[in-house]
């Protein structure tokens, strides 16, 4: 008989966020599959620690499992940061499958202090601004709250400056003119009231944010072989897709809702304009390549692999 294990799962999104019920369902399935020997408590909304610290919390055993945003910390996880570069992902569901499959090649090396259970993305977000932005040159001189450090590098490359704020603070920053624009997924705009301030929305799948569900290594190693198998069976690409799907659907639905709101302008791009954007963000990709090289990987191979996996799951741009 396996000895009972109690897991603390930590997320930093508010309790009403679609990710929490997905994780709860995942934990319930683990409990069932383990014959009740692995039970979990879910702690949402930063109850166990701040968003930025979730990787460290997993490593240190403050949480046994945690929802991690590697992009919050510039320079720390260069490989996965590549998935945060603009114009890669077309959607959230297939995109999640692709990201998870791709990152499994690098996870053990890049996140060596934890056991990476799965990786996932949200449905692509875009740039939402107080004044109209059509061309990359419009970003020059703007103050932008980026989703990740990688997006931050893109903003810098375009001649804008970065404003840091947590998601709940973002609306305030935009209202007070500390920021003029924000990169954000579509439905979350409404969740945080940001749609009250930003009236212009670039109508392209601009970027997405890669996330990881990580597990404390000692906790995993301390389990019986049968329990480890239950965890392994739940740390799969299929489960990543299952967990990410409700959130992806939620964000995907947000775009149509914003488009239907009066007083909001969806800024469409011609193929030529889209081309200008792709050209303008290229320096950020070079910067990313440098950081990957420094970490001992071949950036071209890493990026090709990501693009191929995305194509395989029909999620590339």
């Amino acid at each position: 008989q396996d000895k009972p294990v109690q897991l603390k799962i930590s997320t930093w999104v508010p309790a009403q966020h679609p990710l929490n019920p997905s994780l709860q369902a995942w934990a319930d399935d683990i409990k069932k599959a383990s014959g009740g020997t692995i039970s979990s408590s879910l702690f949402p909304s930063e109850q166990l620690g701040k968003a930025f610290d979730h990787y460290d919390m997993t490593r240190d055993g403050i949480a046994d499992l945690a929802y991690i945003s590697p992009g919050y910390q510039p320079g720390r996880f260069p490989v996965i940061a590549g998935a945060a570069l603009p114009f890669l992902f077309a959607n959230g569901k297939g995109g999640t499958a692709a990201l998870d499959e791709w990152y499994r090649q690098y996870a053990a090396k890049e996140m060596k202090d934890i056991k990476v259970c799965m990786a996932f993305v949200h449905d692509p977000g875009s740039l939402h601004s107080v004044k109209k932005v059509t061309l990359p040159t419009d970003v020059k001189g703007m103050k932008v709250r980026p989703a990740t450090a990688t997006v931050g590098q893109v903003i810098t490359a375009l001649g804008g400056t970065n404003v840091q704020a947590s998601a709940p603070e973002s609306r305030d920053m935009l209202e007070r003119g500390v920021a003029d624009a924000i990169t954000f997924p579509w439905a979350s705009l409404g969740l945080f009231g940001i749609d009250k301030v930003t009236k212009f929305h670039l109508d392209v799948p601009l970027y997405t944010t890669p996330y990881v569900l990580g597990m404390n290594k000692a906790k995993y190693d301390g389990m019986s072989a049968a329990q480890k198998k239950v965890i392994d069976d739940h740390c799969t690409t299929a489960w990543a897709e299952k967990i990410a799907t409700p959130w992806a659907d939620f964000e995907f639905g947000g775009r149509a809702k914003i488009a239907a709101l009066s007083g909001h302008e969806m800024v469409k791009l011609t193929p030529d304009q889209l081309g200008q954007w792709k050209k303008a963000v290229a320096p950020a990709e070079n910067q990313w390549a440098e950081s990957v090289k420094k970490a001992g990987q071949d950036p071209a191979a890493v990026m090709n692999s990501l693009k191929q996996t995305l194509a395989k799951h029909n999620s590339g741009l």
Partner: protein
Amino acid sequence: MSSDAVALIGFVSLFVLMLLRVPVGMAMGLVGITGYSYLTGFAPAMKLIGQTSMRTVTDYTFGVIPMFMLMGAFVSISGVSKELFRAANSFLGHLKGGLGVATVVACGGFAAICGSSVATAATFAGVAYPEMRRYGYPKSFSSGVIAAGGTLGAMLPPSTVLAVYAIITQQDIGKLFMAGILPGMLALAMYVLTISILVRVRPDLLPAGKATSWGERFRGLKDVWAPLTLFAFVIGGLYGGLFTPTEAGGMGAGGAFLLGVLRRKLSRAQIREALLQATRTSAAVFTVLIGALLFGYFLTITQVPQKLTEMLTGLGLGRYGVLALIMVMYLVLGCLMDAMAMIILTVPIIFPVVTALGFDPIWFGIIIVMTVELGLIHPPVGMNVFVIKSVVHELSFSTIFKGVIPFVITDLLRLVILIAFPIIALYLPQRMG
């Protein structure tokens, strides 16, 4: 041992350590980490200390605390409390009870720059008390009105306790500051009313002071317009969406520094003193914040707050019954500890109950700060009273409490008004958009 038992032992040891004068933040941190270590393991507990300490002190939004403290320090060290009192007195002093009203008004003006109730009381114990005594005001009234007037410091923005409440409950600091304005002005008006009733009932109690010429009155205004303009600029900018709370504090500190230097009221030594005072007091507050977070993580894994919420909401007392219970608890705690410690220790536990009952979090912030401030002046012990006594040695506690009783009654009445009409607190923040 069950996690409930661990939580209980935690609370008991916390109180013992605090009564043995271990700094509140250190006691909370020590107990929190010990309990956490027992439940989760030693290694994660040690990591939690470093992580929580570093994350808390490098949180940009928390910068609001040292910045407003620095603004208050620059303004008060440049002598504005005396000028405020002199100006108010020149208009009101010749009336019966006028010196008392002038004290309340000057406290209100000072409160608009200084974030602390105890500092306001201490300042005016030095400035206004001797004047009131000189014109034959009784000791009890003179000290009582200062104790009460001091509480305006925490209600009118900026307010350190309101900022800390906002941080703990993840509410908007700017909105809480705005929510304090109308209740603070109501308090000021009700204190003035209390004094005029006292004058009616006992005409000989508060003699008239000396009359001042209009020329002198306007000369007095010349001294106070600058800090009051600074206040209007900072709070107006916050309300109008020009800057974030941290930025408002930074602008206020920068403005107060420039005003002090340009008006030749800040020497090099005074600048250093103001910087140091802001640093020390901010460090003291952050120590408590870090301790409270560590204690909070411990409580989270014991799941005591959830259980307490279920218990209290299941009592069948109704929303207002539970609210009354909470407020009585605060009045009792008011005999033990100061406002900051009370807020930090109890809000993480009480807040889930309050939101579960459907009360507005901004409104509750105002109610809780009013209750806690009442604790600072009501008998048998209270922080404002201690501080006034430490400034004016001739007073006894019973004398001060005797003088404060009319104002305690006023405050209780104001609490009832605020509970009946939440709009008084919520009107301005709702306008902010």
